[in-house]
């Protein structure tokens, strides 16, 4: 398996893109990985699942960046 640096960059970009397109309310909440289910357990150190959810959420936030105004958070609209 001969790698080049370009294939590494390609793989990294594809992985980050895959994490960035995970939809919050349609998919992650359904399987119990939404961010509203990660609160609690302050005395304890957070487990793997909470860390992973935080990681996914932070990747998505960083990737979305300046497009916050347009995509927004669909959750707010649906709750009203």
């Amino acid at each position, binding site marked *: 398996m001969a790698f080049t640096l370009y*294939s*590494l960059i390609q793989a990294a970009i594809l992985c980050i893109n895959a994490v960035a397109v995970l939809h919050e309310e349609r998919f992650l909440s359904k399987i119990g990985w939404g961010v509203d289910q990660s609160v609690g357990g302050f005395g*304890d*150190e957070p487990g793997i699942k909470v*860390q992973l959810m935080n*990681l996914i959420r932070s990747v998505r936030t960083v990737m979305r960046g300046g497009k916050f105004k347009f995509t927004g958070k669909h959750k707010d609209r649906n709750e009203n």
Partner: protein
Amino acid sequence: MDLPHHGYRETKPRARAAPPAGDSVLFEDTSSAAPAMNSQGYYTSGYNMGGPSNDMQGGGGMNNLFADPMANAAMMYGSSLANQGKDMVNKEISRFMTVNKLKYFFAVDTRYVLKKLMILMFPYTHQDWEVRYHRDTPLTPRQDVNASDLYIPTMAFITYILLAGMALGIQKRFSPEVLGLCASTALVWVIIEVLVMLLSLYLLTVHTDLSTFDLIAYSGYKYVGMIFTVLCGLLFGSDGYFVAFAWSSFALMFFIVRSLKMKILPSLSSDSMGMGSNAKPQLRLYITVASALFQPIIIYWLTSHLVR
């Protein structure tokens, strides 16, 4: 000193034919000092200064660079540009990594390198694996054999690439592209391993003082074993390759487990009270063992094609 003088005059015949003062103002051609001409090309303000310097050329001994105000100004401009560039580069680099932290990893001496290589190849007799501190900062590799450095991994990586080229050349399979391919493959595997280790350490919220450079160092130590394996494979054939491969794999696994145990598993080594969830010490142990088991796999992957 007269030679560039004459050579320059021959390339500009017009300056020779016409009177020097008139033509020089028109073409910015002093022909007084040949080095001064290069700097004049970069200046539009050289037009004005070309006049006075032309008038001074009568003596013919104006080859001295520092007597010519044009060359002087050009040199000062160039050096200020260089300083600006240097400051900018330093600022950009210091945003990504602190040079001081990097200097710590290269503060090695011969005695340390020899002892570390011995430990990498034969770690079974080494007694004390603790990294010693000095008022909250870890000791430099010069003073502490257990400290990790980046000198050995860098040198081993480069030596491995050269050795791979040599091994392929012996088997008449060499071409320059193969060398670059081998180098980038090995580099990519190091990057992958460091990223996986960082990810797993983050997910398990292991509070450790292992920095990214430490992980790069521990990933790079396997190249020493790889060099030894490839050398034995070249010298002693296929049997020598497998013997050396087994030896360096076990030595490296022992080294990694003992070194990382000190840094990742503090609760296991102190007392066996279950603090927090019960799964965590086990998961930390899994990380250490998985990282150790990964080494022989990658050693085999990166060296078997060199020794057929």
